[in-house]
């Protein structure tokens, strides 16, 4: 493709050199590509294969089911709850975390004293292991835990009482509040990463446009909404895509928070947790593979839809 636009080169030596360069390029790419094909593409296709069989873990296929597992999924109440929960989580968590991430990025993008410290501090929760921070969170929101004490000390209890919550509440144990607790936890821990993405996007905006806006008399608020926010579109696209893919893969926090059954009452049953449950609790590998196939198709389709929403994305 690019060769056509380049001026014709003559001479054998030049061509040999080009070929060697290409060979070296392929050689470098061969190992990671082979790993990618086997470990990512290969396993994905293998999951498609397993999902249409009655499959024994140890001995492999027993009988052909065709689309039987997928039909069963459509009538599986718990799977449908898992889909609903994962979608709910995605719809709430992604915009919330994007907003917090952008807010933090704008703050630490100012030329203020100690901004390196703030950048590090806001990013800090993201480097903690998800297992450790989830256990910490469970303690924070347990009945009579730090969260309950702080809202009591701040005099917020009348507000919570109006919403129907007593002075102590089992936030992770109540089916109505368990998923929202996880959403807040993950919004907190992931907003630092999103901040980093947004920071990179913010710094790619040329200073010229801000100068032009200033000359036109735009205030800070106007500059943000009319200049910064629209120019961040590639950033929004990237963060939203990464966010949606990550959100649909929700697992660690619900596995630790609610166990393999998504307790309480399926409130924390996500699609990936249900996959895990089918594979390792029910020991039904083909059914788990079918869940994986559905999840793969959704995750594969999501960025395509998002591309529509955000228009054509950047070159990558």
């Amino acid at each position, binding site marked *: 493709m690019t060769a056509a636009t380049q001026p014709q080169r003559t001479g054998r030596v030049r061509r040999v050199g080009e070929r060697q360069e290409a060979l070296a390029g392929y050689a470098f790419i061969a190992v990671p590509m082979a790993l990618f*094909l*086997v470990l990512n*593409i*290969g*396993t994905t*296709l*293998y999951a498609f*294969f397993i999902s249409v*069989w009655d499959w*024994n*873990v*140890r*001995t*492999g*296929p*027993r*009988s*052909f089911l065709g689309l039987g597992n997928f039909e069963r999924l459509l009538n599986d109440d718990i799977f449908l709850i898992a889909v609903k929960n994962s979608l709910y989580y995605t719809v709430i968590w992604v915009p919330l975390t994007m907003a917090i991430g952008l807010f933090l990025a704008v703050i630490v993008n100012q030329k203020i004293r100690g901004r390196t410290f703030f950048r590090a501090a806001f990013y800090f929760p993201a480097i903690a292991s998800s297992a450790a921070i989830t256990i910490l969170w469970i303690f924070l929101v*347990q*009945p*009579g*835990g730090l969260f309950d004490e702080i809202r009591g000390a701040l005099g917020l209890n009348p507000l919570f009482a109006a919403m129907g919550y007593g002075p*102590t509440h*089992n936030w*992770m*144990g*109540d*089916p*109505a509040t368990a998923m929202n607790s996880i959403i807040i936890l993950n919004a907190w821990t992931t907003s630092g990463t999103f901040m980093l993405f947004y920071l990179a996007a913010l710094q790619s905006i040329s200073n010229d446009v801000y100068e032009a806006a200033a000359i036109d008399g735009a205030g800070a608020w106007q500059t943000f909404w009319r200049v910064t926010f629209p120019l961040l579109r590639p950033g929004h696209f990237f963060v939203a895509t990464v966010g949606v893919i990550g959100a649909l893969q929700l697992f660690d926090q619900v596995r630790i928070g609610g166990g393999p*059954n998504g*307790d*309480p*009452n*399926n409130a924390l049953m996500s699609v990936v947790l249900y996959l*895990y449950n089918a*594979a*390792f*609790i*029910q*020991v039904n*590998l083909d059914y788990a593979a079918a869940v994986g196939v559905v999840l793969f198709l959704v995750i594969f389709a999501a960025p395509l839809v998002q591309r529509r929403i955000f228009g054509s994305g950047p070159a990558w």
Partner: protein
Amino acid sequence: MRQRLLILGAAMALAFAACTGDGGGSPGPGETEPGGQTTAPQTPAGTAFDPSAISGEVTLGQWESSPAERDALTEALDAFAQAYPNVTVNQETIAGDYRAQMITRFGAQDAPDLFYVNAEYAPEWIREGFLEPLDDYIAAQGFDTSTFYEGYANIFKGEDGTTYGLPKDGNTIAMAYNTDLVPNPPATLDELVSLADSLKGQGDLKAPLCLSPGLDRGLAFLYAQGGSLLTDDNSASAIDSAESTAAVQWYLDLFKNGQGMAPGDMGDGWCGEALGKGDAAIVFEGGWLLGYMDTEFPDTPWAFAEMPTGSSGEKVTITYTAAYSIGVDSQNKDAAWVVLQYLTGPDGMGVWTQGGIAVPSRSDVPVPEGFDVIVAGADYARPGSGFMPGYNDVQKAFQDAMVAEITGGSYSADPVVSATADKINEVLNQ
């Protein structure tokens, strides 16, 4: 573009072939191979099996919950090495999610020769053909299995009575109570309820009883009141019987009337913590409570008592246990059996349970100090898990419905019973 797709397709096909090619060990699509169809023991038929004549190496895969458990196992394996110097045991602690890791190991036909099997998932592992039948070894050696308590041993038998594992130890659920608040433990469920009423509001109690809103303890109360999950021949649901429904209602009423509370609602991780912290006066736990209370809450005065009897009038409780099993794909089955028969035999189990973290699963092993009540329960205990395939789904259906009843404030047994019955019938028909 078309060319790119072609190349991608070819690459995918290659990767696919690389993944499915498993050396021809497993049958192709359409063929079936029933699990566990291997012959054992590998000694000539008719000759008695002499464990001391066997030599070899055995990999033992197990979980490890505490340093004390590791020490107890080390002592048991040291004693084994003395008794059977020809067999070397390579111990491999499987860290993290034992159940998930073992399943991937079975899938790769790379499981340890000998390993723990928790009662919770024994029926699934038997059904999937992961476990080697042991009956031929038991018969050839004349290994005495008659002293195993049935509430433990029966869990590791298939539907046709084949033995796939022998319990390495076992626990029964007993009543643990704060001796300051409860001088005389209740002997019947009626006494338990009236005692709970009188304890309400005493001390710092958040509730008199710590209860789980599920079958992991609820099953014991169901049995105590003549209820059951399954009919006697295990062929149909019995949770919808009048006795069962009444028992479920009784259990829900404990929550409704503030006599009992779930540990999470008290801000505790489990009921042992609730007893230790004084949030509850009575909890229902197994032998694992003893070591926990000694290390975490040495100042809380408490004791074990047998489970109160219910309207059935008979003593009953439920068991939690784990077995040693041999992998179907093991290359060292004879040597693995030598280790198994020692560790589940009277001598090996004696060393293992002296560590103070495990309770014997057979009656010819001395009872370690503090576990008398737990062992007394083994005489009449019924399996608390692992007695039917898909029990996790049944338990989940029961618990989900029960949590919905409690958080919804309606406390009605009917939705719990019907959700559980539906799931039992679905599981039985699979």
